[in-house]
């Protein structure tokens, strides 16, 4: 009996002693600050306790820069630019996410950067407008066997002024990590400021890959459920010139931004030519096609092409077959020099489509893509 007692005492005593030692050391060794963080040349300025990560500090100040992995340094979304940076301080954990240009501009990952000095940083201006929203699920509809169309009505604040190709981050309550965030493209037209629509594909567990946290959560929502989200985010800049044609190419789960672009352009810039190409496997994966067909009859400047890559013999289909880049090649004219493209889908699709577009003389900096 006495052995158990002493084991507990010795064991916990040693651990508590070590913990205290570290606390004392931390007090004397870590510069407590506070340090000043200056965002976008004085647009925002706040002080931060030493040793906090920049991402945590920014979120505490309600500056919601994108971050999908919750600060683990695996998604690479939380890029910020330091104005007076020292490239030697970039950690080995950050380097794989940067191009050489980004490195030379002083880009860092906010989640890996511990604040140990005064910082001046530059983030895209619209990120300062990003807010946290409370929303209620207003409808959730199965559009295919694994795809849901989920609409959220914004409750507080009631309006979000999102733009072409923007996305939001849904906050997913997690028993282990508190809150994790997942990014979803907005699929509704920019005209709707009070509602946000998303297309969410369910990612069930496959072998060793666990089920998607975000899609599982969103697919489980029922009408009237409360959801928190931050937004809007987005790097795409639409050329609003009505003569410039926009080529949208989506595949698999990459429908949402396409729908947002098509509907928004038809609403806001009527007469601007838009091509929509969408690639999926078989007829069960098709959704929204009837709606697009109606729209293309109504608006002569809008064209839609769906292509199926794995058509089975017993399926009925009178459209294109094969991978989507073949259809892009077939329908588009050869001189795309002044036009613009938005691609969203799996990496092989993006690479193949980019090649086709470059062959047709589109400039690389006019091709925007979202690989996933």
């Amino acid at each position, binding site marked *: 009996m*006495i*052995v158990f007692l*002493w*084991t507990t005492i*010795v*064991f916990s005593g*040693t*651990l508590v002693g*070590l*913990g205290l*030692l*570290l606390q004392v*050391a*931390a007090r004397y*060794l*870590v*510069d407590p600050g506070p340090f000043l963080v200056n965002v976008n040349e004085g647009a925002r300025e706040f002080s931060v306790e030493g040793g906090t990560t920049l991402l945590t500090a920014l979120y505490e100040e309600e500056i919601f820069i994108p971050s999908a992995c919750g600060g683990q340094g695996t998604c690479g979304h939380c890029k910020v630019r330091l104005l007076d940076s020292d490239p*030697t*301080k970039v*950690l*080995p*954990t950050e380097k794989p996410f940067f191009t050489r240009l980004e490195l030379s501009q002083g880009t860092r990952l906010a989640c890996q950067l511990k604040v140990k000095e005064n910082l001046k940083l530059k983030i895209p201006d619209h990120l300062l407008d990003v807010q946290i929203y409370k929303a209620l699920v207003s409808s959730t509809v199965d559009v295919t066997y694994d795809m849901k169309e989920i609409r959220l009505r914004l409750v507080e604040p009631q309006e979000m002024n999102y733009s072409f190709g923007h996305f939001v981050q849904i906050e997913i309550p997690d028993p282990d990590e508190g809150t994790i965030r997942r990014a979803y493209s907005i699929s509704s037209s920019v005209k709707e400021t009070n509602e946000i629509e998303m297309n969410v594909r369910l990612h069930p567990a496959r072998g060793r890959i666990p089920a998607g946290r975000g899609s599982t959560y969103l697919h489980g929502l029922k009408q009237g459920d409360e959801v928190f989200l931050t937004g809007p985010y987005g790097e795409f800049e639409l050329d609003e010139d009505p003569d410039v044609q926009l080529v949208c190419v989506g595949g698999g789960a990459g429908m949402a931004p396409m729908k947002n672009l098509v509907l928004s352009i038809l609403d806001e810039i009527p007469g601007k030519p838009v091509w929509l190409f969408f690639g999926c496997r078989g007829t069960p994966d098709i959704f929204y096609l009837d709606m697009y067909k109606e729209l293309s009859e109504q608006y002569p400047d809008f064209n839609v092409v769906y292509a199926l890559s794995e058509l089975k013999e017993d399926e009925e289909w009178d459209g294109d077959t094969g991978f989507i880049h073949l259809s892009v090649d077939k329908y588009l004219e050869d001189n795309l020099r002044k036009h613009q493209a938005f691609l969203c889908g799996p990496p092989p699709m993006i690479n193949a489509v980019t090649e086709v577009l470059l062959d047709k003389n589109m400039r690389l900096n006019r091709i925007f893509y979202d690989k996933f």
Partner: protein
Amino acid sequence: MDQPSFWIVLVAAIFTNNILLRYFLGMCSFLAVSKRVETAVGLGIAVVFVCTATSALNWLLYYGLLNPSTSIISKAMGQELDLRFLQFILFIAVIAGFVQLVEMIVERVSESLYMALGIYLPLITVNCAILGACLFMVIREYDFLRSVAYGLGSGLGWMLAIVSMASIRERLRFSNIPKPLKEVGIVMIVTGIMAMAFIGFAGMVSL
């Protein structure tokens, strides 16, 4: 028991009983961080410090609290209390705590060293060379001074091995190595040859 002198323990731990080349302990960080001499020296110094300090601390812990014939608990209770089964978990806890401390010190003292060691610093926690040294000192029943000497020697021996490996690897970059043996493959072979070379010290002193 007749024990070797302080200096013999120190020299033997570095050369004849090198913790890495004789016992092959601490191999993971040895393989991962031996690409550049500068980084290897940094990690080596950290290991020397942690190894020496934790041998001392763990000696005090072991003989003060865990060992039945010497512990203050046994003396206070008037009966022998054997808590030696706690040695593994407590040794590891002390090592982990100390690594945290070293990390804080390095971060404060030298920014460039902190950058160079980066993600590898926490590797010291699971560096089996350090736990190995602590356990050997218990098995061989060293007194306090010899334990410190053994910890210091083991750390220095590990540092000697990783720094020599790093300087060899810096030169290996210019040699034409068959593709299947690149990186870790050739490092394993070189480690083996180095270990054999260290047998040359065998007659010098022994533990």
